[in-house]
């Protein structure tokens, strides 16, 4: 017996080892984004110094915490939507859901006089219900997710607007509100890090590990790659789909709460449109629209690159009128690069 196994190991020169982790990391989309990020850091460390003056310092801890803070709200949308896209779904309604959560919080504490924590719970629950509704319509009525969530994205702001109809001084459903506890939470800092930055960082790490290392994470890739095949190996794809839509909406709710507490302002439209930035970051980071590929590391780098560019141009003193088209051009460039890269790989495959 021992002899046989000994022979086996001796004869098997190839252990079919995986490609080295470092090499594999270099093949993911996170890698070129990391390079792009490094280039930006170098550029923005030097350029503003010359162009603006010695006070325009980019390379310091504060800048990076600011970048994290600035991407926190969109980042939460990216996590939820990214996981859904990996599994073959899509949610275009999470910007609207985030706005709704903010409005519930604001009207709750200001008009209804709820304790802050009650308002938070109600807001999160309401978000989850929207996610559940999405999941029911998509999984039971078998309507395409794209259309369902797009409709939801249009419908929810109307609900938010209706809820804020009695607010004094409301313009387009915008509500100013004050709550000392929430302000304390929203503006709390540990060193240069504030709540929002820490929350988004922690969630990216937790969800990133879940997606990359756990059984559940692996299941999402299989489902996104081929839902029929996943079902035929006993994966309960429907239950997972429900979970992911609810998860996406709850994260959107958190994003909305984070946004509202940071600025003390909520409104039916404040995060509408942000979902597209979130999805763009995910796609930029290698989560392909077809499902079954990419990861949250790449998605994180995607959104970091988008925000770093914005932060860097701001420090460089560029006019906002120039920043927007420039960041659009950058995005197009990155996506085009990715496209040519992928189509080259695909060509190699069609032998």
């Amino acid at each position, binding site marked *: 017996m021992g002899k046989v196994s000994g022979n086996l190991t001796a004869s098997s020169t190839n252990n079919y080892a995986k*490609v080295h982790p470092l090499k594999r990391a270099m093949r993911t989309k996170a890698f070129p984004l990391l390079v792009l990020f490094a280039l930006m850091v170098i550029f923005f460390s030097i350029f503003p110094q010359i162009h603006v003056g010695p006070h325009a310092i980019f390379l310091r801890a504060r800048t990076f915490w600011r970048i994290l803070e600035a991407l926190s709200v969109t980042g939460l949308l990216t996590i939820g939507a990214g996981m859904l896209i990996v599994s073959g779904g899509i949610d275009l309604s999470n910007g609207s859901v985030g706005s709704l959560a903010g409005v519930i919080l604001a009207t709750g504490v200001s008009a209804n006089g709820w304790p802050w924590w009650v308002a938070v719970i109600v807001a999160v629950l309401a978000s989850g219900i929207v996610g559940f509704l999405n999941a029911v319509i998509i999984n039971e009525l078998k309507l395409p997710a794209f259309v369902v969530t797009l409709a939801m994205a249009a419908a929810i702001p109307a609900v938010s607007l209706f809820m804020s109809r009695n607010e004094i001084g409301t313009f387009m459903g915008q509500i100013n509100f004050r709550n000392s506890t929430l302000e304390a939470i929203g503006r709390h800092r540990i060193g240069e890090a504030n709540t929002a930055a820490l929350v988004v960082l922690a969630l990216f790490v937790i969800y990133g590990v879940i997606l990359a290392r*756990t059984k559940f994470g*692996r299941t999402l890739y299989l489902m996104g790659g081929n839902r029929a*095949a996943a079902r*035929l190996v006993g994966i309960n794809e429907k239950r997972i789909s429900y979970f992911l839509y609810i998860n996406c909406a709850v994260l959107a709710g958190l994003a909305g709460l984070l946004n509202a507490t940071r600025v003390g302002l909520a409104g039916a439209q404040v995060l509408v449109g942000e979902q597209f930035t979130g999805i763009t970051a995910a796609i930029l980071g290698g989560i392909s629209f077809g499902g079954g590929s990419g990861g949250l590391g790449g998605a994180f780098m995607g959104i970091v690159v988008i925000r770093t560019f914005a932060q860097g141009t701001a420090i460089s003193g560029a006019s906002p009128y120039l920043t927007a088209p420039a960041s659009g051009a950058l995005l197009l460039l990155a996506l085009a690069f990715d496209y040519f890269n992928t189509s080259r790989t695909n060509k190699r495959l069609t032998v």
Partner: protein
Amino acid sequence: MGQFLEFRNISKSFPGVKALDDVSFRAESGRILALLGENGAGKSTLLKIMSGDYIPDEGSVVLNDEVMNFVSPHDAIVKGISVIYQERQLMMALSVMENVFAGDLPNHNGVVDKAKLKAETKALIDKFGLAIQPETPVMLLPVAHQQMVEIMKAYRRNSKVIAFDEPTAPLTDTEITVLFDLIRQLKEDGKIVIYVSHRMKEIYDITDDVIVLKDGKFVSNMVTQDTVEGDLIKAMVGRDIGDTYANLDRNDTYGDVVLEVKNLTTNAISDVSFTLRQGEVLGFAGLVGSGRTEVARAIFGADPIISGALKFEGEDFLPKTPKDAIDKGIALCPEDRKEQGLVLHRSIEDNVCMPVLDKLAKFFFLNVKKCHKLTVDAIKKYDIKTPTVDKMVVELSGGNQQKVILGRWTSEAFNSKLIILDEPTKGIDVKTKAEIYQMVCDFAKQGMAVIFISSELTEVINVADSIAVMNNGRIAGVVDRKDATEESVLALAMLH
């Protein structure tokens, strides 16, 4: 002197592979030329070169002394070369006539002349003796008729050359007869016909000459009638593989009853009953659409059961989802590997570990080493050709893909008691087919019960111990291997 199509010293390389290496041969009008070779021999590349999809690195395609320099598929069409692929290139939402005349619709100053379009299509349909209406949307037609539409399209373009890439794969026997009549008609009309198929019987039924390719190289050019099957297989494989079926090392002892099916009825099947013991291989034959796959899906919990009773290892068993069946030790290798079996753009490892992730995880976290080991075991056991466990399944050949699915269900982490193989050899070359037949026997020897579904009569009556013949959703009869002949099985399958 008829027309001819000549391939002159064609070479084509892709990164890491020389797909075609100095291939030369000639096809003549009024004859049907078979193109034969294992998967990866270069047949598809050759077809793509003649259709203008690929540009050869060296060499040229010559049609009637004129050198063709195609840079796009359009060029090939203009010169009269049509390739009919397995994946049909039709506009599904448009009507038959619009597809047949696509790109060349009869019109008056840009306005389509519907009457003329319809009349001309009707004339074509009548010429080929088909039962199709010109105005039916193509997506409403059965697969076989869609293929006829493709042929009419090629014919209408006045193609000189028409090539077929495994045209019979999705067809039933009756449909194949119709297709063959059509192809023979093309031959009589003086077309140059090139025919690619893995089915030996068809090569002898319809072709006049055979070209064999192996590993991208030209091996031989023979007149079909002067050869026997063994010659062709030897040329393709490079060695004599002998009589596949006679050499099978079969199982001859049965154990306890594993599965008992009584009056099983679903949307697609009715009143299906049979029993299956450990170590038994039960074949399912029948025409496409006769309900073979649906029996498998019902047992596997993939389709809802309307009535009937199942017993698994003596216990009542009513699967509602595939998971119920899998938990009992039932495995399904589905008919459509790419659509239902594999996650094509994930690694071999992901695809092998799919059903047993629970056993490979500890507190939700996957055990990387266990996953790796399980996959390496499968690769070695089935001799899957790959350098690493990381390789995406889409990059593997059909045979290796099928082995990945077999590896998935026969790993040490899954105790497979009943394995259902639905068309396991579809689109797979002769050599790998023989390997798969032996695997089926090995499964039986290990005590598994096996359901072996196949459209290829020869294989099902030679591999299975007994054959259940499906007809119109019912089992029309069960025949033992020793009594089974193609005629007797076909008679049951087509009985009304």
